[in-house]
């Protein structure tokens, strides 16, 4: 990590009370991202990646308990009062949600939803805000932007709506953009376009970006660093090239293997990860992945592996039986 981090998440834990008991959605996560850098957070559904993003934005459900620190631009967001937090959100800290079908207000025009953000943070007058909205819509690749301002979300396709959501997020030139599964709800053909759009705008604006996804393929060419999450914890973290070259965590390997290969023969069974993630209201004593791990041995079931440094700089993993070290055979 060069220079001071723009965002650093320190020991963040999120607990949700449920009828079945306390659910630890995020379990002592440490992460950081420098200005203009890109971080991918990868994990399967329910691993706590969305809760982590909500914890960064301070948008957790009311009942959730958050501990730890979220340092952004020199301030701890957890302790920040509401008014100063509000001035930060949408201005220097922006987000693109997963489903553009539900993240835009159905009863307000695209123009209203774009202009209100500009007027809230940049003190633009009506004409200037409208002109800037048109520019923004054009920048995210929306044809006939002037007409779009008058339209409602339901008159646009899913891909177009996500472009609008991105335009809103970019509108005040944020320092950090959190994209929470930005392409999961979209057609495959649109996914690459949206990801390329995000990457292009990120470079152009020199903005830091966190991409949250369940798809290692999404982060492969588009991030500087990747954190793999499992059952609320970061289990491996590395600069992107190092991760793909020399992954240590069996879970990362399993995630990569679960991506369908384009050159696989027809009817090849997909190497899906067997079993399910553990019940987060019943934490395991040992490594959370051990019940599904083909390398697990006795120690894995009784002791939680700490997140330790690997030999290459910036690479950390939490595993007693790491891959790509001394040859280990499946237990």
């Amino acid at each position: 990590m060069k220079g001071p981090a723009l965002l650093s998440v320190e020991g963040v834990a999120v607990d949700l009370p449920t009828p079945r008991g306390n659910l630890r959605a995020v379990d002592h996560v440490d992460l950081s991202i420098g200005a203009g850098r890109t971080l991918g957070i990868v994990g399967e559904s329910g691993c706590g990646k969305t809760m982590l993003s909500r914890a960064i934005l301070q948008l957790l459900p009311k009942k959730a308990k958050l501990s730890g620190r979220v340092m952004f631009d020199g301030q701890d967001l957890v302790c920040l009062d509401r008014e100063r937090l509000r001035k930060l959100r949408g201005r220097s800290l922006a987000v693109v949600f997963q489903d553009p079908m539900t993240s835009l207000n159905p009863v307000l025009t695209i123009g209203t939803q774009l202009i209100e953000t500009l007027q809230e943070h940049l003190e633009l007058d009506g004409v200037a805000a409208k002109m800037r909205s048109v520019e923004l819509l054009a920048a995210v690749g929306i044809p006939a932007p002037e007409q779009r301002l008058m339209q409602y979300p339901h008159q646009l396709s899913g891909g177009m709506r996500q472009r609008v959501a991105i335009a809103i997020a970019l509108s005040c030139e944020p320092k950090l953009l959190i994209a929470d599964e930005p392409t999961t709800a979209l057609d495959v053909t649109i996914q690459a376009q949206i990801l390329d759009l995000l990457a292009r705008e990120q470079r152009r604006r020199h903005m830091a970006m966190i991409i949250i996804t369940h798809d290692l393929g999404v982060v492969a060419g588009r991030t500087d660093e990747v954190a793999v999450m499992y059952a609320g914890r970061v289990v491996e973290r590395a600069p992107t090239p190092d991760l793909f070259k020399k992954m240590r965590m069996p879970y990362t390997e399993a995630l990569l293997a679960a991506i369908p290969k384009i050159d696989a023969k027809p009817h090849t069974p997909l190497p899906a990860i067997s079993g399910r993630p553990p019940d987060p209201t019943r934490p395991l004593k040992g490594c959370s992945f051990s019940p599904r791990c083909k390398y697990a041995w006795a120690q894995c079931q009784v002791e939680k592996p700490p997140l330790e440094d690997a030999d290459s700089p910036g690479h950390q993993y939490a595993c007693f039986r790491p891959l790509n070290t001394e040859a280990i055979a499946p237990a």
Partner: protein
Amino acid sequence: MLGFVARRLLYLVPVLLAVSLLTFLIASLLPGDLAYTILGDQATPEKVAALRHDMGLDQPIWWRYLSWLGNVLQGDFGRSFRTGQTVLQAVAERLPVSLELMLLAQIGALTIGIPLAIACAVRSGSAFDRFMTGSAFSMLSVPAFLSAILLIYLFAVELRWLPATGYIPFHEDPVGNLRCFLLPALTLALGEWPVLMRVLRSDMIQTLQEDYIAMARAKGLKPSRILLVHALKPSSLTLVTVTGINIGRLIGGTVIVESIFALPGIGRLLLSAIFTRDLIILQGVVLIVALGYVLINFIVDLLYAVLDPRIRHGHA
């Protein structure tokens, strides 16, 4: 939008025909002969027969309906046999009273209901929310005559701020007119705000969980803007429906409140028409009230389209 309005107007034609037929049937099928009512018990059968012929009562019922409908379409709703007043005159005299009462009652109910609903939805599940929801429920079960008497006792008898009964026309004394309406309007509002509050509260709680509200918060908008623009508008469809139903109901006046506060509204006109068996007035007024009801519902439909663009564009 114009096509939408035209389509809705077209739907109204069969509804209005059905309303007129039902109104006519109810009045015609009531027991008792209109001619006897007019002439009294001492009338000779010849006189009755002659009057029945003059009034067309000896014609078949479908013929009477069609000729009545024809008159109505030309603006002739009939004339009271007792006072000689036409239905339209009687309604024109009484309707402003009922409309003013209805309007003030709605303003009162919405002014109490909307802010409370928003406050409860924001803190749903809190002690404040539970207390207000409970209070609304108990207010709902207080009948109008009881709250009317309590209000009269408090504001007219004890504090002597407002008149207990009576009516002063607006053009004679606007302030006095408003003072006459305050207590009856408040009586009605007290019965209505709990319903408005409960429907808006539950819709609003649902809306506040939507992704677009999280998005609005992530955009750093002011809480007031999130609540009043992003959440209230999509939550108000049921509220508009219930308000529409209330307005429609109150166009026909409220017999109890108008009687307690001695307001000369449509409710009392209907009541006296029933007591004096003035079927022409009854039938005409019921039809006009029903027309008002249909009109209000038409406006509610249009309001839906204003509130939710998806309805306007035929998506939902």
